């Protein structure tokens, strides 16, 4: 297993813990991805320009190819966009020609055979749930967890080929291997609302609130994410750098954003605790005025 670590842009500033802890968990399970300097995956600019997005993804993949490595990312939006770009480049010769031209001056070449994997896939496929179960030192027995799948890895399934888009199991299997009890909840495959954050905060927060409510109704103690953007949106620990703007719809009024009524942690924090790397810690108590 030779992977290049593709943390994605949001980790170093917004969510450094997720990057650090993911690498620690992977190292404990024998996977040590190489550090390579990548550019953005192109997801954030995809709604602005398909070419900019696909060129970004293709350049990142070409950088990995040059190093002879496959890509491993903890972010589902990065994963989704890299897979989307692979598909778009295979589907549209005009894009492929434009990208090839743009990469040539740097001596880079896009290789369609590169494999892009999400953290969950590496844990499930390359390491294996059985190996994870063996490595678990402090099983999190009795912890009821709601696995939040994240849209861009799951869909469009023909492009991402992540898991069954209607009834995925990869996340729950892994959480069960850590000793937790995954709960079945209504909105587990739904959007966290992050794509609208800063653009339409009212809708973004309403989507997040509906997710919290659904997880709580299913009796979950913890909502677990496996995506940088989802964790930024749903978690309380993410640095909030929402941009105040005259035109964006803010909710409910200017002021501090309400904290989540349920603990939201990323998958590596949970797995690391199960592997005995660090204590899970006390979950922040639900705040009474939201949810």
């Amino acid at each position, binding site marked *: 297993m030779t992977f290049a670590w593709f943390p994605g842009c*949001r980790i*170093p*500033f917004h969510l*450094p813990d997720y990057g650090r802890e993911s690498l620690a968990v992977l190292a404990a399970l024998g996977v040590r991805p190489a550090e390579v300097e990548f550019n953005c995956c192109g997801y954030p*600019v995809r709604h602005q320009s398909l070419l*900019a997005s696909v060129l970004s993804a293709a350049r990142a993949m070409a950088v990995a190819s040059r190093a002879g490595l496959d890509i491993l990312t903890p972010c589902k939006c990065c994963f989704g966009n890299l897979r989307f770009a692979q598909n778009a480049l295979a589907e549209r010769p005009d894009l492929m020609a434009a990208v090839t031209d743009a990469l040539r001056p740097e001596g880079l070449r896009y290789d369609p055979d590169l494999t892009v994997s999400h953290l969950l896939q590496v844990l499930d496929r390359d390491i294996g749930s059985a190996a994870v179960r063996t490595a678990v030192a402090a099983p999190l027995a009795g912890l009821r967890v709601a696995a939040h799948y994240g849209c861009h890895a799951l869909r469009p*399934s023909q492009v991402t080929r992540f898991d069954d888009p209607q009834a995925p199991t990869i996340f729950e299997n892994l959480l069960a291997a850590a000793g937790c009890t995954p709960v079945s909840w209504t909105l587990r495959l739904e959007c966290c609302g992050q794509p609208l954050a800063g653009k339409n905060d009212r809708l973004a927060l309403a989507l997040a609130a509906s997710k919290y409510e659904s997880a709580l109704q299913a009796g979950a103690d913890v909502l677990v994410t496996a995506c940088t953007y989802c964790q930024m949106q749903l978690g309380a620990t993410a640095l909030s*750098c929402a941009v105040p703007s005259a035109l964006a719809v803010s909710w409910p009024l200017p002021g501090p954003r309400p904290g989540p009524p349920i603990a939201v942690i990323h998958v590596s924090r949970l797995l690391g605790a199960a592997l005995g790397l660090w204590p899970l810690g006390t979950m922040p108590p639900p705040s009474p005025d939201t949810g």
Partner: protein
Amino acid sequence: MSLFSAILWACLAVCLCGAAWRMARWLAPDRSLAVPGLPPSAALRYLWRSLSWRDALAAAPRLARAFFIDILLQGHLLRKGSLWRWLMHFTLFAGFSGLLFFHALENFVSRPLFAGYEPTLDPWQFLRNAFGAMVACGLCIALCRRIFVRDMRRTSRIEDFFTLGVICCLIASGFGLDAAKIVSPAAFERMTADYLPAPDAADLAALRAYWAAAHGMAFPVQMSPPGPASPEALEKGRDIAEMSCIPCHSPLRSAFVSAPLSRLFAPAGAGLVDGLWWLHVLGCLFALAWLPFGKLFHILSTPAGILLRGLDPGRDAAAPPAAAPLNRAVGLDACTNCGICSRHCSVLPSFLALGTPEILPSEKLLSMRRLAGKSGRLTPAALAAFSEGGFVCTECMRCTVVCPSRINLQDLWLVSKREAARLGYPELAVRLRALGPDVWERLARTGRRAKRTLAASPSLLDNPETFAHCVQCSVCTGVCPIFRLPDIPASEVDVSPHQLMNLVRMGLADTALSANFLWNCTTCYKCQEHCPQGVRVADVLYELRNLAHARVEAAARAGLLDDADPAAAQPGGRP
């Protein structure tokens, strides 16, 4: 007062006033750099108040290390840049400093400190050549990098080449002057008048013959007899030279640049002494006067920024301290346009595709400096570009990590987004929400004049097959997460996904672009995943957004967007 000292004092005054003016702007930063809720001018007070003796003592070793390693030895260039970058800058810095202190300020430094100092004696003669050669070496590397390295060429500006040109002029005129003096008969006559009190004609002729033979000095015909000098005369000249000249003249081979150069100058160049002197001196004085107004100011601002920078730039950017405006103002001045941020920028491919220079950090910083200098008086086109660049940034913090001037760029970019939004230029998607179908139709008509780029030539929208199988079953709308939310105003869901598909199918893309819902799609792809007919609903929505961006960008570039200024639109989209 001589002409020279008049010019000297005038340039010194310009330099000091300019530096004071720029530093005053650090102490009273522009309001665009303010921390919300705090007056920017109070930054210095906050910084002062936050300091205690204990803090100062604790920080002293760190600051001392930063001063020696990062400022004097420029170790940060080696850590974050490359060996060439460090070699380029360190040779420039060390050579220039040596020339400044031991040559330009010789009456204040070299003469009082070193007994028996003479500029024509070693080690000074050698050092002057060595320092000059170091600067020349740094100049060559800098020029080659800016011309031949593609990423450097991309961000190089006229000012960068102008600055290199000024330094080049100083060094070239300096070496030229040195070389011309070596072979200058006028300099010889001045020296003999000073050091040979009562020369007779024969002695003088012998000395001339010796200097002409030994140093290639070209005396005018009337001074030296034609034909080669006799060995006796040369011998006599050497004796006189050893008595009167050599104690103050080291052998010329230590002047390893100017001596070989003097041979090129030999016959004609001697007359250039005065001209080269004025060129050299005026060049130096111009550089002095210009220092506060160009990138050379980084000689002061970059060390200040390095010493002021906090321990954790990420934390300072996330929760700016009260003194942040001061650091931001210094940071804006500390940029040397070295371009390293833009070379490592995460969104460099977006710049390559979209072509807006402000996407690159080094260019965005220039806009921000203009914004902070003129209190937001950027033209609408410049503001639109500034906003686009700002919002394409993914806040990955890499530029902050690699910046050799140690500017907290992350903090500046968060401010840039805030300021762009405050000035009516929030993220383009937010502004596009507010445009009605009439605007989209007009942009479609006028926009055709703009070049059709790949991004502006959608493939799904143009292809009837995309929608051919849509039976308007509304499954896409049924699974849409926005449509299941309770208590959502009707204006947010003005058009549903299946209606959008139908609008586009009927050729009413302009109406589709003006739907609030288009901008409320979370791109979760449930619609596309669940469509029983295999219509690529979410991909079409993405293409519609791409189309909207392309049209507005093309119109903005063509200057067609003035009367449809999105900034004037109502908040929150159309009702």
